[in-house]
Structure formats: structure tokens, C-alpha cells
């Protein structure tokens, strides 16, 4: 049997901010984006704000109605990255099998260290104490024999707590929990499960597998395995990073975009970043995906192929604009856009050359892009810019490549 810990830093962003500002610790605190740039939603909140009903993702004004004394602080991602790195450093003292799930959550497989440190619970206790002493923030830890139950354990009791979920107690501990607590049971799945009378994790576990499969497809079996504690996914070893599947950037614009030209400006900045990151990874994309959110938060996503693998921003912009023009009808102004390079291949993949196009132009463009990368590395991002980005600095004055990039992660990689 494996011994797996899931270490979850409680209210991560808010805890870090409270550590640095003792004067606001006794008040409801929320870390929130900048309302002037229209990023004004709650990113994290402390326990006091949580008890007052403040929720992650709601607008600041909504939160202030529930908690009039709410203190909002701007996020400082550099600080959070530092804390995340330090916390992981502590875990690495106990095992080399650590897998991050976002900035504030980590799985650690300590099976191999039990003979040195004692039981998994003892190791969890050591980690909890050390994080509290050394970083001044609390963690909740789930101790179990698979990753899914370990994660449930860390959610079971918060903050500053350890929950053991073992083969002899998981039925009494896990099965009464609502089905939506299980990883990958979201709104839609939850609704489907309710329609066949399943509301708890135990319900999923005791339901015949084929019934679930008929209702949910292949996810049915996955969830059934999860609920019965039969998940066998390993905790990845240090350095076993998942291969990059797509490279994307997006932004909620400081003002609504009202014309194709505006959208092109923003796409240009995003494409520059996407293209530069592709070059960093030595990858090319063979497809482009755009995501558009309009003023009324209607959301659409479209993708298309590119005829030749590319890491050039000009190709990506062209494809993105083509997609946009073909699909967006301008019923409402656009609020947020995102751009991704998809279907990635390594940059030195062999390509079929065209008889009718001048390939040397393409080579020259690739060399130019590498040169610009070099210039930016030495003299800073703003040392060389597209002239079009000066048309409206309000819209283009951001640098998605070097401003924070925090990637959402998937359990299945």
C-alpha cells in the first residue's frame, strides 16, 4: 500500500498577505484584482471573510455587501511563487516524488521514506509544523493510500489539520460526502448523477459500473474507481514534467473592444507572447484557438488548423483574426480574449515544402523572430515593439509572457 500525502495551503494568497500585514489579520481580508483594469474579482479570502460568505470569483462589490469591512489587497504573484517554492522545498526533505496541483497544492508519495521518519501521519505532522514555523502559514494535509482520497482528506478538515483516510475507515469517512466533493465531479456531472439518484460518493461507489458508464461515458468508470479508492495514478517524480500540450495567453481588457482593429491589437500582444513561448520550448503550433467573451459574459471558443507548423507571431495573428472575423458577429463589445497555439510539434519537425511559395522568406522571418527574442532578453521586453502596439498603449501595455503565468493543471496528464 502506498502512503500519499496531499498538502493544501489554506487560503494561500490571503494567508501570505496576512502574514506580511499583521495590522489586518483580525479583519476580513480578500486578495482581489484591480477594479480599474476590470480585474476586480476576489481571488482568495481569509477565514474571517469566508465565514461572512465571501466567495472566490465574485466581484468586489458583491463581497463588500456581505462584508462591509472587507479589506482588499492587490495580488503579488512573485511573493506567492516564492512561498510555493519554499513549501515544496520542505516537502523535498521527505521525498523526491512530489507533484504540484496549482501553486498551493502538492501530492507527495512518502512510501519510500517511512522507515526513516515513521508513519505517514508522523511525516504529515512534521510537514504541518515546519510549514507553520518556517513560512507562517497553515496547511491541511490528507493522508491516504491514493491521490484522490489524499486530496479529499486535505479538504475534509481545514485549516491546520491532518486527516487520515485509510482502507479501514474510508467507507465511513468518504462515502457520506456529497458527490461533488470528488475530483472531476462538477456541475454537469453532479446533475447527471442526481438524475439517477446519486448524491454521495458512496452512491457512486455502490452503483454498478455499467450504469455509470451508460450515463457518463468513460468518465463513469473513472469516477467509480475514484470513489472505491482504486485510483492507481502515481505521484510523478521530480523532473518528470508533463509535456506541454498547448501554449496560450489571455486577458480581460481594460476597456471593451468595439472593432476588429481593437481585437487585432490585443491579439498581436497575445500572439507575440504565445510565439515567444513556443520558441522558448522549441515547439511549433499547427493550430490556433481563440476564446472570446463579450460584455454580457457570453463565451465562445473556436479553433482552426494552420497549413504549416509555425512559431511566428504574424502567422498566429493572421489565423486568429481570420477565425475571429469568420465567427464573431459584433452583437456586443468584447470584454476578454484569449489565444492559444494548439496541436504542438517540435520545432525541427520535417515539413513538406511548397512548390509555389518562397520558403526562404519564412526562414528569414524565423531568424528575425529569434533575433528579437535575443534583443528582448538582453535589453528588456519594451526595447523592441511592433509599431502597432503604440496605437493604444492602454490596450497593449501588458506583457503576458513575463507578467505572471500560472497554468491551470489537469489531473490526467
Amino acid at each position: 500500500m502506498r502512503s500519499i500525502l496531499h498538502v493544501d495551503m489554506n487560503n494561500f494568497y490571503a494567508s501570505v498577505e496576512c502574514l506580511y500585514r499583521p495590522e489586518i489579520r483580525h479583519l476580513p481580508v480578500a486578495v482581489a484584482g484591480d477594479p480599474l483594469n476590470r480585474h476586480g474579482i476576489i481571488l482568495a479570502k481569509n477565514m474571517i471573510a469566508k465565514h461572512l460568505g465571501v466567495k472566490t470569483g465574485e466581484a468586489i462589490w458583491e463581497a463588500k455587501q456581505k462584508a462591509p469591512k472587507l479589506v482588499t489587497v492587490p495580488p503579488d504573484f512573485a511573493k506567492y511563487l516564492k512561498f510555493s517554492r519554499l513549501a515544496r522545498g520542505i516537502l523535498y526533505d521527505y521525498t523526491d516524488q512530489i507533484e504540484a496541483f496549482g501553486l498551493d497544492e502538492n501530492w507527495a508519495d512518502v512510501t519510500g521514506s517511512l522507515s526513516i521518519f515513521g508513519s505517514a501521519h508522523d511525516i504529515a505532522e512534521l510537514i504541518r509544523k515546519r510549514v507553520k514555523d518556517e513560512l507562517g502559514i497553515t496547511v491541511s494535509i490528507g493522508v491516504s493510500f491514493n491521490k484522490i482520497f489524499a486530496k479529499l482528506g486535505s479538504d475534509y478538515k481545514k485549516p491546520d489539520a491532518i486527516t487520515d483516510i485509510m482502507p479501514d475507515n474510508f467507507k465511513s469517512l468518504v462515502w457520506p460526502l456529497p458527490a461533488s466533493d470528488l475530483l472531476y465531479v462538477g456541475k454537469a456531472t453532479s446533475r447527471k448523477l442526481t438524475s439517477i439518484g446519486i448524491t454521495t460518493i458512496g452512491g457512486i461507489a455502490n452503483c454498478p459500473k455499467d450504469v455509470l458508464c451508460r450515463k457518463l461515458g468513460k468518465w463513469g468508470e473513472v469516477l467509480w474507481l475514484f470513489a472505491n479508492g482504486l485510483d492507481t495514478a502515481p505521484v510523478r517524480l521530480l523532473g518528470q514534467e508533463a509535456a506541454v500540450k498547448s501554449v496560450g495567453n489571455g486577458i480581460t481588457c481594460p476597456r471593451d473592444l468595439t472593432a476588429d482593429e481593437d481585437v487585432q491589437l490585443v491579439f498581436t500582444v497575445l500572439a507575440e507572447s504565445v510565439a515567444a513561448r513556443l520558441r522558448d520550448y522549441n515547439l511549433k503550433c499547427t493550430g490556433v484557438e481563440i476564446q472570446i467573451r463579450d460584455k454580457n459574459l457570453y463565451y465562445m471558443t473556436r479553433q482552426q488548423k494552420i497549413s504549416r507548423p509555425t512559431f511566428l507571431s504574424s502567422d498566429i495573428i493572421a489565423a486568429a483574426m481570420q477565425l475571429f472575423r469568420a465567427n464573431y458577429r459584433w452583437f456586443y463589445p468584447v470584454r476578454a480574449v484569449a489565444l492559444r497555439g494548439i496541436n504542438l510539434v517540435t520545432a525541427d519537425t520535417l515539413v513538406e515544402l511548397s512548390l509555389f511559395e518562397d520558403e526562404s522568406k519564412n526562414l528569414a522571418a524565423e531568424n528575425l523572430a529569434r533575433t528579437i527574442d535575443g534583443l528582448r532578453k538582453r535589453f528588456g521586453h519594451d526595447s523592441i515593439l511592433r509599431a502597432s502596439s503604440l496605437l493604444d498603449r492602454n490596450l497593449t501595455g501588458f506583457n503576458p509572457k513575463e507578467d505572471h503565468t500560472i497554468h491551470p493543471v489537469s489531473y490526467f496528464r
Partner: protein
Amino acid sequence: MPRIELDIIVEHRKDGLALPKTIIWDDGRCFDIDRVLDIRKAAATKCGGIGIRYICRIKGREYKIFDEDGKWFIEQ
């Protein structure tokens, strides 16, 4: 409690150990550290910050001095 950032004289040993020797107050007064009692990573929960904590004895009283990425501060 405010966090007071310090000018400080530190002895860096060849084995990597750093020992604070003298703290220099903003008004120019210097205080020698008589003895370092404890060195470990810790959070300064009272004034906010994390780093390496040196518990030091200065003129018979104990103070906690922190090194946060090369910036030193004292928690009284």
C-alpha cells in the same frame, strides 16, 4: 508591531555560515551582538516576513533578527 529594517554587519564564514555581528540603528548608534543563540528558518509572525531567524543576545536581552533574501530586519 512595525517591522524595523536594519543596517547590519555580518561575518560570512567560509563554510557558508553567516553570523550577524553589529546592528546599526538609523540614528547611527551601533549595538554589538553578544551572542547568537539560535539559527533557523522561521516566519516573523508578529511583524510580517519570513527568512532565516537569528535569536541574538544584545546587552542581556534577546532579539529576533531576520534575514529575508538579504534584507535584514528586527522583530522586537
